């Protein structure tokens, strides 16, 4: 599903990724590990299509609408409510049965009560959960998760564990994390950067 040959990405003169070869098959779960600044986020952004390689080649066999990207930032409007944000993305991603799907996700991630609250009032953990909802909303084939556990409380962690367990083997996943032990059992491979 993802193939990279000699992939490199520089920001100005700073080379963050260098000469990377990668092969990810469908329904693989690849763990991307490495210290800060090793290029984990950059790799995911490249796969999402937000960044273009400055060297080498990268092929991602998934359409834009079938990719789910979880970044460091939740990518939601602070002044809109949880519901409004998900509705916006739901429309743009042409999600079928939008209302039901949004409702289901908000419930699953414990945000139903807060659905009419502005994201600006959310805690970090709640924002992260909303970001997860946004990422999963359109049922993507390829999931690119950048530190998905960041900011989550115990309950959030448990929810995410369950989600990952159900997703693994049915979707392709790239997971960048500082804490690989957590998901090591689900991984089909590991990529250590830096």
């Amino acid at each position: 599903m993802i193939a990279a040959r000699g992939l490199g990405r520089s920001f100005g003169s700073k080379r963050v990724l260098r000469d990377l070869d990668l092969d990810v098959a469908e329904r693989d779960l690849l763990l991307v590990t490495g210290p800060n600044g090793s290029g984990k986020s950059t790799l995911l952004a490249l796969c999402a299509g937000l960044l273009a390689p400055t060297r080498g080649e990268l092929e991602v066999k998934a359409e834009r609408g079938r990719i789910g990207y979880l970044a460091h930032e939740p990518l939601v409007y602070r002044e809109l409510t949880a519901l409004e944000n998900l509705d916006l993305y739901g429309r743009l991603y042409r999600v079928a049965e939008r209302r039901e799907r949004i409702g289901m996700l908000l419930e699953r991630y414990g945000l139903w009560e807060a659905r009419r609250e502005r994201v600006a009032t959310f805690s970090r953990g709640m924002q992260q959960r909303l970001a997860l909802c946004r990422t999963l909303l359109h049922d993507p084939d390829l999931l690119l998760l950048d530190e998905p556990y960041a900011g989550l409380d115990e309950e959030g962690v448990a929810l995410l564990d369950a989600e990952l367990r159900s997703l693994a083997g049915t979707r392709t996943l790239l997971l960048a994390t500082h804490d690989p032990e957590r998901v090591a059992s689900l991984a089909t491979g590991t990529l250590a950067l830096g």
Partner: protein
Amino acid sequence: MSYLEDVGTLAAKDLRLELRSRDTVPAMLLFVVSTLVVFNFALPAGASADAAYGLLWAALVFTAILGLTRAFAAEREQRVLDGLVLAPSDRSAIWLGKVIAVVAFLGLAEIVALPAFALFFQPVSWELVAGVALASVGFAAVGTLLAAMAAASRARELLLPLLFLPLVIPIVVGGVGASIADDPGRYLGFLALYDLIFAILSWASFEYVVTE
């Protein structure tokens, strides 16, 4: 057509955001009126009637810049633009939705500015109003694209006026012409031409400004 739906979704989003935060339009309203008052003191006693029209257009340009500086503020803060760009919808829909919102905000500012101008300075003709309407489209079309560029830069608020001013000189010419010339139709036609050319160009190239 899903393209138009996307545009509608995005425009609605921008209007809703402004309605909720109310930070851009009030500032624009206040700014344009304050500027007109400043211009009263900037005009020497014997200045011609026409000079006032010129200053009106200067006020409109700077008010547009004020509004446009905020155009991508929400997206920039949260990097939400990445989220919008990743969606399967056409990127130019982001531009068009934003343009609709910017035109709306400019329109509100003008609804206040023109009567204020008529009150303080000179009467306002229908040709002038038409010119202002056409000019707003031009400001929004070009300004939205440039605002997206500025949002991706380090200089941000500083960069937008620099990019914007040379490009809108023709709009100012068209607008002032429509206000004071004997034959305003020519200038209105020119404004329409400007709008057509630069709207198409901006619409087509927005994609490249927000992607790599």
